[in-house]
């Protein structure tokens, strides 16, 4: 091993560390920003109580009508805790596509590109930071309601894997939303694409209904698409803390994340090549 290669590796390693510290600082800033107005944060998170209250009544009636304690491997308690996490993941994520499209339209993207950080890395860190604050409050509120009205949450052993899957899910969602936002370089208004995407997440992502309850053919299609790994996978892991299931679902999440991140990087490079900045 040459001395030069060792020095190069050390320099490379310290650059990665510096870079990670930079984005971790962005996440921390967003956390502090989110917690600065607790009243506002709680007020915006109250929606989960409305949804969960309706879901508790709906699924109690549904399970009572079937006369079974478990449907497709999910008990009433599992289904409602699944929905707490699925709804929290969806309600807490920021509107990335809108923010990026706005930055492209009003030209502020040029200002952000000149900063000493990656535009996409910065946006991803902001997304995770914002979502973490709101997600925590939303889960606490929704979870408290379900705990009181239905029963305790699933085993705590499943929480760390589920947390990792939630972060991966937000990042997969971030990649898809970024692709939509970057379309603003080509089309003026991306609202329609963002809207279609949100509906796909709603149905194929398992936000309203666990994919396990779908007809088999439909479920297989949904599981083969990335939408399921933004919401269904983390929520399913939360209620079924099984190591084998975690390895399978988290592995698929990482594969989708790698593929989508590569695609985002390529599209971003092509879009910024088209960018013309005038003035100062």
């Amino acid at each position, binding site marked *: 091993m040459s001395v030069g290669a060792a020095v190069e590796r050390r320099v490379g390693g310290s650059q990665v560390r510096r870079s990670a510290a930079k984005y971790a600082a962005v996440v921390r800033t967003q956390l502090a920003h989110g917690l600065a107005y607790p009243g506002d944060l709680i007020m915006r998170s*109250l929606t989960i109580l*409305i949804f969960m209250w309706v879901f508790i*009544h709906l699924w109690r009636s549904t399970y009572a009508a*079937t006369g079974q304690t478990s449907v497709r491997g999910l008990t009433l308690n599992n289904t409602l805790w699944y929905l707490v996490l699925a709804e929290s993941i969806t309600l807490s994520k920021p509107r990335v596509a809108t923010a990026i499209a706005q930055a492209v339209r009003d030209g502020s993207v040029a200002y952000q590109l000149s900063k000493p950080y990656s535009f996409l890395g910065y946006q991803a860190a902001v997304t995770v930071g914002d979502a973490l604050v709101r997600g925590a409050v939303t889960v606490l509120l929704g979870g408290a309601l379900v705990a009181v009205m239905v029963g305790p949450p699933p085993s705590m052993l499943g929480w760390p894997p589920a947390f990792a899957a939630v972060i991966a899910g937000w990042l997969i969602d971030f990649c898809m939303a970024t692709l939509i936002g970057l379309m603003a370089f080509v089309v003026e208004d991306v609202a329609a694409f963002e809207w279609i995407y949100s*509906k796909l997440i709603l*149905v194929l992502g398992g936000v309203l209904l666990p994919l396990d*309850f779908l007809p088999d053919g439909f479920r297989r299609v949904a599981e083969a698409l990335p939408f399921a790994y933004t919401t269904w996978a983390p929520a399913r892991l939360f209620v079924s803390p099984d190591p084998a299931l975690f390895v399978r679902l988290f592995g698929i999440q990482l594969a989708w994340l790698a593929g989508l991140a590569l695609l985002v990087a390529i599209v971003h490079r092509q879009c910024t090549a088209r960018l013309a900045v005038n003035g100062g």
Partner: protein
Amino acid sequence: MAGKRAAMAGEAVTGGALARLWRRVRAAFRSVRVETRFLLALWRVNLLSALEYRTAFISQVVGMMLNNAAFLVFWALFFERFPSVGGWGMPDMLQLFGMTATGFGLGVVLFGNALNLADIIADNGLDAYLALPRPVLLHVLAGKSRLSGWGDIATGVLCFALTADPGAAAWGRYAVAALASMTVFVSFLVVVASLTFGIGGASALSAQAIHAMLAFATYPLTIFDGTAKLMLMTVIPAAFIGAVPAEFVRGYSDRSLLQILAAAGVSLALAVVLFHRGLRRYESGGMAVSAG
């Protein structure tokens, strides 16, 4: 003689009171006629301005119909696995969803500012309306029309056409129920927004109220227990936006007609009274520039 004079004086007094009452009734009718003409003119202007940008109009209508379709897909998938919930099946859900969509759609098309009335009050936006010689509440509510509401109306009509018995009587019931549903929905938003006069910014509360109203109105009433049902008929009158009008459309009954008319009347009266009481506390922010 004295008795006769007293009787004549009494008749004169009664006649005077009747004349005054008649004058008041005539003035009220004239006022209703004038304001109706004003309202129709506002709606016409809103529609013409929507049609000016035809592509945007069509895309919003189609977009909202697809949005609603996503929820109907959810219910179709749900009933595929669970054929009945609280005695409800897919046709009942279509009727419920259709009624809620029609009531909501009519509300945001005809009184589009109801959705952001709390913001208008908090941002001193009423100044522009107070300076004009028209009823403030009516003017501010109808000052804007939301194009996407046409998509909701179209979804509602489609759901009704797919599930209801054909015939003029059914369409008549549908029209009455939709108007009652719209009245309850808009009145509820006015009541919530009127809290802004007292507590300041009620925008977040108003947004949550809209979420709650739509969430509760699009689920079968039979899944809720007694206390929850009572709440959905009083505090958050979602039952009178979806389930009760839908029941009236399914089959005429004096009881359900009385229920939807009473709910519409009471909520409208409450909205008008609370808004005007609140308006007395309103302080101008010097924003009397334009109304729209």
